[in-house]
């Protein structure tokens, strides 16, 4: 066992354990904060896969953006008067069966198919240059479409979340 394997198991444990808390915790705040550790663990896995730019992006966008949005959502949609932010679960048994079948099938498939995958070639020192070149050449159209999608989402979210007085008075 080398350092790489030890670090992989560390990050994999952080990711999976905190994802368990996200899914099974009754307290919404605990779930939201353990999602933070899931995102950090996934960023660590990206670093192990030599995707340094994506790891930084993961921390910036998921932890800095999406998680803060989620926390705002939790705070704004619960009556703060009763401090217990609890939530129930439904369909537990069918969901367990479904998830066991799906996850077991995937894990068995991955293990049997990719078990003896060859050692990867040594990667470049940094991925930022090649990623930037690819975004500006081969992936130019999806890149531009993504920018338009982000603009539309920005305007749409602002319009949707705003409390319109005319609608309420009707």
């Amino acid at each position: 066992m080398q350092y790489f394997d030890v670090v992989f198991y560390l990050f994999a444990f952080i990711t999976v354990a905190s994802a368990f808390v996200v899914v099974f915790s009754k307290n919404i705040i605990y779930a939201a904060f353990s999602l933070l550790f899931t995102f950090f663990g996934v960023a660590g896995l990206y670093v192990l896969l030599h995707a340094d730019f994506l790891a930084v992006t993961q921390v910036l966008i998921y932890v800095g953006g999406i998680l803060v949005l989620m926390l705002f959502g939790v705070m704004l949609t619960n009556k703060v008067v009763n401090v217990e932010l609890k939530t129930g679960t439904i369909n537990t048994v069918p969901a367990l069966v479904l998830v066991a079948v799906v996850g077991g099938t995937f894990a068995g498939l991955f293990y049997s198919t990719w078990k003896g995958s060859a050692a990867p070639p040594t990667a470049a020192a940094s991925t930022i240059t090649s990623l930037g070149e690819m975004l500006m050449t081969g992936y130019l159209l999806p890149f531009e479409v993504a920018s338009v999608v982000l603009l539309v989402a920005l305007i749409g979210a602002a319009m949707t979340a705003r409390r319109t007085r005319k609608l309420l008075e009707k």
Partner: protein
Amino acid sequence: MEAFNTFFGEFLVWLPNVQLAHFLIVSAILFALGIYGITTRRNAILVLMGVELVLNAANINLIAFSRYGGANFDGQVAAIFVIILAAAEAAIALAIVLNIYHRFQTINVDEISTMKE
């Protein structure tokens, strides 16, 4: 029994030797947990958290195949687009959830069953 023993021996050799399949199995576990969260949670925001788990699982797969499958960066570019769309999705979905809360005073997905008052 012998077949099981050889399988188990292979598994014990495979386990500490991290390869592509290890990353894929972590992502499979994350995906299954996300599906479980989407199915069982009653709070709309926790359903969104399950969606984020599923998207992260897909991203791990894309980047793992990009690393082990020929060392080109196509998978990483796809992962960037997944992250972009996840950000847009989270913003829109939370705006919708806030509107639902203003209208129904709850975000329990079981109780939101009418499309129009």
